[in-house]
């Protein structure tokens, strides 16, 4: 499928030998070293801009990934794995002229075992493509990040990503059985296994969420989930955020386990409605999008119960009439981040998790912080598990704006943690949240994390400068952020 010969490009000044070795090993069509390709590999979907990315490689097999890692080591260059670049924390943005290993060509579903509900996939398989591929078998891959149409399974593993339906089904780590990994010295290891209780330490579990710092996953065994026999989608709208939050609490307290419970505030609803035209109510201060699934009878009963609870708390209820309407409503929810540009050109978001009981309190505090800084916030989040996504929309070209946004971000994290929350629910730490780690972890905690990292990658060659703040990180971050040489050289 990927037969195309990418344009042969001029090597980047200063790394001719590294590029030459990569070209010799992978072939000229799998290595890009021009300024344009480097520029694009220096960012992901976050506002963080990395240094000059090294050459960008497009391997299509484990031995080719091994070759990339080994050659990088010879030339003392770090290595950064890159999936779709949809990450929101700068985790895929390389620091310090790293060799970038793009997994997009390792995008084949290698094997599907319908009976045992498992599949082996390449790390570059797009999340939604996998689910689509499994459709005829009545199976799907349960983690469904809102970016699922573009993000890769490798990226999901590296960030331990979640999604609306992870409320009932669990996040990525619950759906990964094993993976083949290329370590920083080029060795290939298998972590985890297909049997229910693999022997030894759960290194699979350690790798999931390691943000590319432990190695590059080259094959992944995923658990497949049967499609629910019936699904009902309800859109609840409320005159205030408090009633919406109270409804979430009451639903859970009633012992219901909806597949997904998502909340959006008015500004967010307006932005997405402009895109999807799904009939989201523009006059509501908050909406909840809820999926209940299971056997048909049970679904009816759950939907009725949710309906009662919502009405009892002053909500209006709309039930999606058919699959088309259901899809459209979900498309709206999943487009929320992208739709923000309809309001301002830049956005900065956090993804702290707070105890459900504190939702209202923390949301109020967030509004207070943002107002005080004269900023604008939109809220769209996984209400069922208290995973907030306050999005500050702004224009980075206004002087002093970025600093203000960062400061507000910091305060949001502080109030979330003070409420007993955690720093990141699903997007990971990357560079953007790296320096907030000490707010959550003690020096000892961070040292332990650095030691675990060192066990996988003693020389700190895999995605250095991420997650762990200096001095717990094994490399000097200030040096790393400096681009070596001119991008367009």
């Amino acid at each position, binding site marked *: 499928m990927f037969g*195309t010969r990418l344009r042969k490009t001029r090597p980047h000044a200063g790394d001719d030998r590294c590029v030459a070795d990569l070209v010799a090993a992978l072939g000229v069509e799998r290595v890009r070293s*021009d*300024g*344009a390709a480097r520029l694009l590999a220096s960012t992901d*979907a976050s506002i963080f801009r990395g240094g000059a990315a090294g050459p960008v490689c497009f391997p299509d097999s484990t031995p080719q990934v091994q070759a990339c890692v080994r050659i990088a080591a010879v030339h003392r260059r770090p290595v950064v794995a890159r999936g779709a670049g949809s990450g929101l924390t700068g985790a895929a943005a390389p620091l310090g002229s790293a060799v970038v290993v793009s997994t997009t060509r390792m995008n084949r579903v290698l094997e599907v075992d319908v009976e045992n509900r498992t599949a082996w996939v390449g790390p570059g398989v797009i999340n939604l493509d996998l689910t689509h591929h499994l459709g005829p078998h009545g199976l799907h891959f349960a983690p469904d990040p809102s970016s699922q149409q573009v993000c890769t399974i490798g990226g999901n593993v590296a960030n331990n990503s979640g999604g609306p339906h992870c409320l009932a089904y669990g996040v990525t780590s619950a759906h990964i059985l094993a993976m083949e990994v290329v370590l920083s010295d080029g060795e290939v290891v298998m972590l985890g296994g297909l049997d229910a209780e693999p022997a030894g330490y759960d290194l699979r579990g350690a790798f999931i969420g390691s943000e590319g710092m432990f190695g590059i996953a080259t094959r992944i065994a995923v658990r497949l989930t049967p499609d629910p026999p019936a699904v009902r989608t309800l859109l609840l709208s409320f005159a205030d955020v408090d009633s919406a939050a109270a409804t979430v609490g009451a639903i859970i307290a009633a012992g219901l386990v909806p597949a997904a419970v998502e909340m959006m505030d008015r500004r967010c609803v307006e932005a997405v409605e402009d895109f999807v035209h799904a009939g989201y109510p523009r006059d509501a201060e908050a909406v909840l999008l809820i999926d209940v699934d299971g056997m048909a009878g049970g679904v009816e009963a759950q939907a009725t119960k949710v309906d009662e609870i919502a009405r009892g708390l002053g909500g209006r209820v709309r039930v999606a009439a058919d699959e088309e309407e259901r899809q459209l409503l979900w498309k709206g929810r999943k487009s929320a981040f992208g739709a923000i*540009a309809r309001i301002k050109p830049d956005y900065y978001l956090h993804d702290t998790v707070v105890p459900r009981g504190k939702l209202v309190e923390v949301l109020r505090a967030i509004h207070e912080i943002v107002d005080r800084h004269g900023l604008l916030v939109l809220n769209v989040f996984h209400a069922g598990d208290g995973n907030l996504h306050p999005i500050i929309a702004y224009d980075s070209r206004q002087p002093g704006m970025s600093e203000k946004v960062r400061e507000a971000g910091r305060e949001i994290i502080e109030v979330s943690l003070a409420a007993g929350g955690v720093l990141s629910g699903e997007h990971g730490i990357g560079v953007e949240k790296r320096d907030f780690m000490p707010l959550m972890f003690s020096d000892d905690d961070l040292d332990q994390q650095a030691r675990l990292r060192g066990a996988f990658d003693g020389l700190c060659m895999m995605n250095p400068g991420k997650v762990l703040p200096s001095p717990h990180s094994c490399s000097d971050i200030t040096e790393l952020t400096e681009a070596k040489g001119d*991008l367009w050289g």
Partner: protein
Amino acid sequence: MDLGLDRSELDACVSCGLCLPYCPTYRVTGADIYSPRGRIALMRAVQEGGAPLTDEVVDSFETCVQCRGCEPACPSGVPFGHLIESTRESLVEHGHRPPLRLRVALHALGHHSLLLAGSSGIAVAQRLHLVPKGLPLPAKLPVRRSRLDASGDDVYLFTGCVMDAWQRDVHAAVKRVIEACGFGVSPTGGDAACCGALHQHAGLGDDARAQAQRVVDSLGDTKVVLVDSAGCGAAMKDYGRLLGTAEARAFSERVFDVHEFVAGHVDGLPGVEPLDLRVAVQDPCHLRHVQKAHMAVRSVLKPFVREIVELDDEGLCCGAGGAYSVVQPELSHLIRDRKTAAVEEVAADVVVSANPGCLLYMRQAGVVVAHPMELVARALDA
């Protein structure tokens, strides 16, 4: 370097990447540089960040099929088609002109009698086996074309350039169907020879505007203008923006894809025995992503065939892209391979596509294709 791009249009992109899988060139390369997000980032880098217009940057812009599959996928409404058109025009101004053979070909499009004569010449040469295989030409061009006479004065049927030379049968079928709906058809012929879409895509803005003005001038009354080529229809609906005049805006309001029009009159068509065919619908990009009129093809076709099936590729481009298949054969073939795989999957008797370029390009790959109106006409005549 100034690419003449509107800052607020560039700003609309938040780099979320949700458009990537809907971009055919990203799908077949997996490379950011061949993605909409990457192209926008490079436009920014060149226009606002002082990045040089290197060969690779130009390559990124020139490999865009201009299918606009990225537009409906974008939650923040980035007008990508407009951005890339302006970029291409600036490239031309900075000396990155399209290849000579393309410029010559595009020049001919506006000279209708020359085009018809030239096409007949090639047709004769084909019969004498003088034309090398593998050129982007129909296997057997018509030497002579049947006349397309006016049957009334209710609606225009825009006949265009290449399509009139190579696929006049399609026009005849379309005319037949519109007449069956109860309208007299006036084919536009040589005066409104070419819509200028291909010029515009190639960055030849002045030529495009000149062609557009000619079309507006020569169809200057109030009749609706029906178009059976999705690419032309999309361009003509955009004349208002392209020419920026009230006259052009009024003209664009009168333009309809023929399926949109017939869908509104399908009840007026006689009930006939449906053709015993399983038909797959391939949506031309400019019908689906730009005109958003692709559902009309289904409603028009439904009463006239046994079964309609959808391709499972969410409307991804077929790779034809006007002149794209000629200028970027490598990427274009890879994109078409995906399309033919999707076609094989559904095992249809015939694939319909409402755009001459797509028809031709898929036919070259051995796919059995027809214009939707050809099937309707055939059912009506059976």
